[in-house]
């Protein structure tokens, strides 16, 4: 079954299949096997996988060979009459011992590779990875850089009103950027439920668990974009929290770090001035679409009871609930998927999104929340 035949088959009737022709793989996989990946470890894991695969194939050939020989050679319809043996100690010892030996042969290299994978010492860069419903948060511990990484695929592609792009569901708004040739240690945790950070090309899959900090590491040799996604069921957005790792040269990495710091400074400066309603609504809509719409829905109707509605009812139309509204967006609501956005979004984004929620979808309260108010709330804590 080649990709092309299927595409040709589908092209006549269903346009989506044509897209598979140009679709770039999300990893270095051939499309039907594990990718060899781009790190020393990932290549070792791939080698282990292939070795064990071929051993299993050899076992299957021998076992099924004898089985099918027996089925063909000893058919009653060909006049076979049954022998009477029903045990043989030597043979039974042999087929207990031989698998033992094969298993030991598999276990030796597996143990060696696993030890290397567990050695997280002497890392050059530490990144704290936090799983949220449904996005990843990255914090560069030595460099004071932190940001969210959200699914970038537009909803129109998911719901079929727009053609699907090459990186459908495996593209993000802001990738994790790492330098090549340096040992990156990931510290993984989660804010709500268990997630799992998986990039096949790096042979890294580690659970991000609330209340725990797990460790793993990788070191990429070649610049490139390596994609993966959450591997542990984490609720309705599980398929929509992809991972993108961009490996760049150490020089480009330094430039990227500077640009992130500059952007953060500019964002902080913006919090000082007075924002107009239009500015707030524009920024608010963008923020809402990225961070809020997955649960509260683009039309603000939510999916009750898990995700409450914001349009026409609840906290965003209650004039007395403005302070609560701010607090929930800043600090989250424990025991629900509502994350504490004050930790990762800027005061401007938070002010804008609250303003948007109180004025969009006919809520029309006319209330404006200024970034400075949010800033002072954060500072007074």
């Amino acid at each position: 079954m080649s990709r092309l035949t299927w595409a040709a088959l589908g092209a006549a009737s269903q346009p989506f299949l044509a897209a598979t022709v140009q679709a770039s793989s999300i990893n270095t996989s051939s499309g039907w096997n594990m990718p060899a990946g781009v790190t020393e470890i990932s290549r070792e894991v791939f080698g282990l996988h292939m070795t064990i695969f071929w051993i299993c194939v050899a076992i299957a050939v021998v076992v099924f060979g004898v089985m099918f020989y027996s089925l063909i050679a000893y058919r009653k319809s060909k006049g076979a009459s049954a022998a009477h043996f029903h045990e043989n100690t030597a043979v039974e010892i042999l087929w207990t011992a031989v698998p033992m030996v094969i298993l030991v042969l598999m276990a030796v290299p597996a143990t060696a590779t696993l030890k290397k994978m567990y050695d997280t010492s002497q890392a050059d860069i530490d990144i704290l990875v936090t799983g949220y419903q449904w996005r990843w948060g990255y914090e560069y511990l030595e460099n004071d850089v932190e940001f969210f990484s959200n699914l970038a695929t537009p909803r129109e592609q998911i719901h079929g009103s727009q053609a699907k792009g090459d990186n459908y569901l495996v593209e993000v708004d802001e990738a994790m950027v790492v330098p090549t040739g340096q040992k990156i240690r990931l510290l993984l945790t989660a804010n709500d439920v268990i997630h799992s950070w998986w990039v096949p090309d790096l042979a890294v899959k580690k659970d991000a668990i609330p209340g725990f900090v797990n460790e793993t590491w990788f070191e990429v040799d070649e610049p490139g974009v390596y994609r993966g996604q959450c591997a542990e069921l984490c609720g309705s957005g599980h398929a929509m929290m992809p991972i993108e790792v961009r490996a760049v040269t150490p020089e480009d990495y330094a430039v990227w770090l500077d640009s992130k710091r500059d952007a953060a400074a500019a964002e902080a400066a913006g919090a000082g001035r007075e924002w107009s309603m239009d500015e707030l609504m524009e920024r608010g809509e963008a923020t809402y679409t990225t961070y809020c719409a997955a649960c509260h829905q683009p039309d603000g109707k939510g999916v009750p009871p898990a995700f409450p509605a914001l349009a026409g009812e609840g906290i965003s139309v209650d004039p007395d609930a403005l302070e609560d509204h701010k607090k929930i967006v800043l600090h989250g609501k424990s025991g629900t998927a509502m994350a504490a956005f004050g930790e990762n979004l800027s005061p401007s984004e938070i002010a804008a999104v609250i303003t948007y929620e109180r004025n969009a979808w006919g809520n029309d309260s006319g209330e404006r929340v200024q970034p400075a108010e949010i800033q002072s709330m954060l500072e007074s804590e």
Partner: protein
Amino acid sequence: MASDTSQATVQVSTSAVAQGDGAHDSHGPTGILRWVVTTNHKEIGSLYLLFSLAMLFVGGSMALVIRTELFQPGLQFIQPEFFNQMTTMHGLIMVFGAIMPAFVGLANWMIPMQIGAPDMALPRLNNFSFWLLPVAFGILLSTLFMEGGGPNFGWTFYAPLSTTYAPPSTSFFIMSIHLAGISSILGAINIIATIFNLRTPGMRLMDMSLFVWTWLITAFLLIAVMPVLAGVVTMMLMDINFGTSFFNAAGGGDPVLFQHLFWFFGHPEVYIMILPAFGIVSLIVPTFARKRLFGYASMVYATAAIALLSFLVWAHHMFTVGIPLVGELFFMYSTMLIAVPTGVKIFNWIATLFRGSISFEVPMLFALGFIVMFTIGGLSGVMLAIVPADFQYHDTYFVVAHFHYVLVPGALFAIMAAAYYWMPKWTGYYASETLGKWHFWLSVIGVNLTFFPMHFSGLAGMPRRIPDYALQFADFNMLSSIGGFLFGFSQLIFVWVLIKAIRGSGEKAHAHAWEGADGLEWTVPSPAPLHTFDTPPPFDPLTESPSRH
């Protein structure tokens, strides 16, 4: 003391049977009520089997909803919230509602008839065990219509997704798991009591059929691990309703504890679903190879070894949670070790075939299909044991392919093999060979078309439990969906076969329905009368034991 009690049990149950016999036509409820109050092992066995068949179609329909959504990339038919409810319910219903009750049904029908007992040792308990199940699954299915929907956290229901973040219906889900668990424990107690106390005089443990042996070991596994499941869902109930924090990190609890407890139940559970299948195949292969089972004693020891090892491997489901290196190595080695007794079983079946006189009736086809495809699932299991590689396989479609190979062409094919094998004994008529062969071959094609491509999509990087996927996985998913529909609809042929046999169309069966078959069940008429072995049948270990020399 213990044997005194068991003697008393025998007395009671045989006298009950005697009374029942005398009053056969005049007394006793009729119609529906007869099935509600029955304490007869054959009737209860039929109830279990019909219930599990119904659940197979309910759980199967949910699988087809899943495969429909996954036919193409994008969200076309259902939303992710409902998709997650379907994957969860599909797993729960198939494991607890279809596979397990089917084996209990077979045990009810066949264990008393294979050991020469008049009935199960605890007939009223038997009735209660069964009737808990429709209640349990009625509750479980009703959650789909509750506010917030049914369970949506996967059949493994990892906390805190299943506690703090779960839909309001979760307490009903916990209730249904409790009821199904009680049913299993009571059923297991009954099976152990029956096997230990009601064997016909002269039949030693090593004279029992392998189906009885595998069920005896399975019953001990059930009693050992079902209480752990009950404990873990009770802890969830407390977290949800009474403010405890067993699994809530914010309250000082430990989400990973949930996984340790769940898999301490869950891994033996996997063998609960496969050991009786080993027993069935160990009867059918010798019957149609017309040659005694090779290595009876080693089969018994291998079954026991697998059962013991099943308590030492649970964390191989958790290689990515961050277990220390030494722990990872321990669970890798212990998991690999299971391949040895499992291999012994496969080699024994093949040695039984070797130099036999083989014919290919439908039960044999399903048993041979079992051996081939279970072996494929077993080999991918060895791959999954290798921790560094498992980091890449874990929670992908490779795992989905692996466990469906051991559960569908594994456990389910063995159940189908058993149904075709014993249908003449149950109904008095052979299952239609023609329809049975259609059922088998369409199932083989369907099952492989569904699950073989999943190995590839998983290796290429597709995580499990996602309602939508990257475009590179489109081709394999389309194949899997086509295969899923073929497999699902093929099972309707089985319903037709069953109805035909029950209605009595087809070839009438003799008492000894298969020429190569061994065992006491073939000494009673076909169909088996309501009461068999009112007096214990004679049994000579020297000529009748499967372990004779």
